[in-house]
């Protein structure tokens, strides 16, 4: 009796607690992001620094593009052309060694300081002297710590002169100058935040050029300025109210780190984010019917491929290299695994880049592959391993290839691993087959040509470790051709050279390119003006408005 009573009382109490908890949770109004703020769900865990002289990550480049200005940018309407950003005009000397830029009048940094040629020169200087990962993009023009002050200098407050060491194709030079590394930083502001460094053999300067401070702060002249970057949580940028150009419409953009496609989808449907940036095919499909969501997309400069390590004697046989290209079920992959997020693409230059070659000659053909294997003396097939990182669609594609290759007698053992783990092995040339992706370093054909079609030194301690090097593919002729294409001033002829290089790689290389990434984003329908550019550093947010 007494016990019943206790039980009853406790039960009532329990129910009461549970109910009040639920009520509290259910109370408030729902899921509207602030009207002047755009919230994007975006996997931003690749960001390790915000310093444009150091950052080489796609998400960082995207944020940077909205914060910093460049001398020139490629014209989004026609990417073979350029338009001035900070530069009003520019001239190229007849010997193609000197580039003179005249800055627009009345340019201002977010700090209020004027943008001068001195800032441009110092930005180049700090980039080259810091010599971080992306510095080679300008370094390849013959710049080094000793000569940079001479090669990149302010001739007048509004005149910047850039001198290169060889008569390169002007399109190549300008393309490199329009990449994030050439961002112009506010010299005066950064100088207030430099940290002393003890010079060493590796680094002979006595300060860090503000690198430490710029990792988490910005000093640019673009439409936005960085409010905060919290690693693996969020990047928040605020409107730069003293922007010299047309001011941004929104007061704030929040890139909120969300790794999972399904979580992004939920949040987008509920309205807690305005844009979802990493949606996978099944989630895209599921949202197709939703009237509150539109899908934006644009082909990006990243290509996905498998590659065969030429240190493995079987994989080094030309017939085997060829056979693999017939053992990929491009149609099935295109219509399921990468539906909406990629497009079958078998050449190494992504669509939209100078010299692109739109040819996809290979189809799944097991019989043909078998014939090739027989010719290579591998009638009974072979066994190889494939290093695959744990993420879609890569895993799915690897499994598909495992199955189709199995039909031709090639036994593939998949070794799964984390991204960095498989990459470590690949970079040490310890793989058999690797499945990976490659994004252009800058928007010029040389970037991919240099990595897929050149390998100046195939020895284990080769200095230039291109993708061809990682797969131990020695290709002296194509290496020379890639170098020659850099100096071709006639754009049409230059394009032709890249088309030839792509044909060679298509036919003979240990690379089987599979597809080009299409970037997609789910966007709430009250967001206007959201556009994805051809590269991550052209995903601008300045023109976006919300209803």
């Amino acid at each position: 009796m007494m016990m019943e009573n206790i039980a009853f009382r406790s039960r009532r109490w329990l129910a009461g607690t549970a109910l009040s908890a639920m009520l509290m949770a259910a109370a408030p109004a729902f899921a509207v992001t602030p009207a002047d703020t755009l919230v994007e769900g975006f996997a931003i865990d690749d960001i390790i620094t915000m310093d444009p002289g150091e950052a080489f990550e796609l998400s960082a480049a995207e944020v940077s593009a909205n914060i910093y200005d460049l001398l020139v940018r490629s014209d989004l309407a026609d990417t073979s052309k350029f338009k001035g950003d900070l530069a009003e005009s520019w001239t190229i000397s007849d010997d193609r060694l000197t580039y003179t830029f005249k800055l627009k009048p009345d340019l201002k940094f977010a700090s209020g300081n004027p943008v001068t040629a001195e800032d441009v020169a110092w930005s180049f200087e700090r980039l080259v002297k810091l010599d971080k990962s992306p510095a080679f993009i300008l370094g390849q023009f013959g710049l080094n710590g000793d000569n940079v002050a001479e090669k990149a200098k302010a001739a007048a407050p509004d005149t910047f002169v850039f001198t290169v060491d060889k008569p390169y194709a002007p399109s190549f030079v300008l393309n490199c100058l329009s990449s994030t590394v050439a961002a112009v930083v506010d010299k005066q502001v950064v100088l207030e935040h430099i940290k002393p460094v003890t010079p060493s053999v590796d680094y002979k300067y006595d300060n860090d050029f503000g690198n430490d401070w710029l990792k988490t702060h910005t000093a640019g002249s673009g439409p936005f300025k960085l409010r905060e970057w919290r690693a693996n949580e969020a990047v928040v940028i605020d409107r730069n109210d003293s922007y010299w150009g047309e001011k941004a419409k929104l007061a704030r953009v929040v890139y909120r780190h969300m790794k999972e496609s399904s979580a992004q989808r939920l949040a987008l449907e509920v309205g807690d984010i305005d844009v979802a940036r990493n949606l996978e095919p099944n989630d895209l499909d599921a949202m197709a019917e939703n009237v509150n969501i539109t899908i934006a997309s644009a082909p990006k400069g990243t290509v996905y491929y498998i590659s065969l390590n030429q240190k493995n004697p079987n994989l080094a046989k030309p017939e085997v290299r060829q056979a693999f290209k017939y053992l990929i079920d491009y149609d099935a992959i295109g219509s399921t695994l990468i539906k909406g997020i990629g497009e079958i693409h078998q050449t190494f230059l992504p669509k939209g880049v100078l010299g692109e070659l739109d040819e996809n000659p290979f189809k799944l053909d097991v019989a043909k592959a078998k014939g090739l294997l027989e010719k290579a003396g591998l009638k009974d097939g072979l066994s190889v391993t494939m290093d695959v990182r744990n993420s879609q669609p890569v895993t799915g594609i690897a499994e598909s290839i495992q199955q189709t290759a199995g039909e031709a007698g090639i036994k593939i053992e998949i070794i799964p691993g984390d991204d960095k783990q498989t990459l470590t092995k690949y970079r040490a040339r310890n793989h058999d087959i690797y499945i990976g992706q490659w994004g252009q370093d800058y928007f010029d054909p040389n970037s991919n040509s240099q990595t897929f079609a050149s390998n100046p030194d195939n020895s284990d301690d080769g200095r230039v470790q291109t993708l061809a090097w990682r797969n131990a593919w020695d290709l002296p002729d194509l290496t020379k051709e890639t170098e020659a294409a850099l100096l071709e001033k006639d754009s049409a002829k230059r394009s032709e050279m890249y088309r030839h290089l792509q044909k060679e790689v298509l036919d003979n290389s240990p690379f089987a390119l599979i597809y080009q990434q299409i970037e997609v984003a789910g966007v709430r329908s009250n967001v206007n003006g959201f556009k994805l550019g051809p590269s991550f550093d052209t995903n601008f947010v300045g023109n976006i408005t919300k209803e």
Partner: protein
Amino acid sequence: MEPHRLSVAEAQAEAGGSNAAAHFAFVARFLVIAIMTYLGLLAVTFFIGRVIPIDPVLAVLGDRAPASVVERTRREMGLDLPLIQQFYIYIKGVLSGDFGRSVLTTNTVMDDIRRVFPATIELATFGTLIGSVVGIPLGVLAAVKRGSLFDQIVRVIGLIGYSMPIFWLGLLSLVLFYAKLQWAAFPGRLDVAYEYSFTPITGFLLLDSAIQGQWDVFKDVLRHILLPASLLGYFSLAYISSLTRSFILNELSQEYVVAARAKGLSETRIIWGHALRNAAVPLVTVIALSYAGLLEGSVLTEMVFSWPGIGLYVTNSLQNADMNAVLGGTVVIGSVFIAINLFADLLYRLLDPRTKAQ
């Protein structure tokens, strides 16, 4: 990771005499064990970190850095030195309070931990609170009504709690309570709308918002924490209720209960006043351990709910071979574990009157 637990009797037997000496011996031995545990912890984590087949330089530079930059960075990070020397340098730093910098976040590891750990503590505390407040009465009632339908239900609840993968349950609850019913808030700790109108003080957002009297923020934080905390609470509830049940059953079979009944005490007093009080002694240890377990960072829960806690921080660092962060996180988690064990032992001594007898 759990250090050797000293039983009170052991400590006293060793001290063999005055209470103060017993306490002293207890604390001294505890300290020695704690220091050994730390060193072991650091060594194991450090060497595992160096053995895993991930190049730490990759985390700093990404995949596209030129070979010359890679080599220079390797030297700068001291990775070209012999392992033992690297370990020595690291330990030297730790002893002077310097845990180094995280490569991924560019902050010092201590700054990072100061930021992420409160998130985990808040979640774990809330979870344990739910687990105990609901779990103990459930366990008591199940013991009292042993064999009844109620008892069976509690057992099934416990069983599900033990065996259900938390990742799956987490996603399921998100779909239901967030996407469909819209009762719970978006993953994370706080709505974007409040993110910059509200300045945290301690990092415990419930506390911070209450101190500042920002009740709308408080409500928002509550809406965010309730779902993940309930989930964690459910798992600790499963554990706590089943152990409570067996402790109470044990107490109810004791002679003092028979005596109390014979004296005509009410069942309420016998159960809640006497049996539970005696069961409280081992129960405290159970709750403390379950709390410590949650403090380690419930990685999966933090992942599903985008909860920026220490579990997520350490996991992410490990995947990127960001060893300073991993080691720093490990030391903190280890310390908490050791501290909670010590605390539980002390509580044990306070709650159990026999330890005061001498």
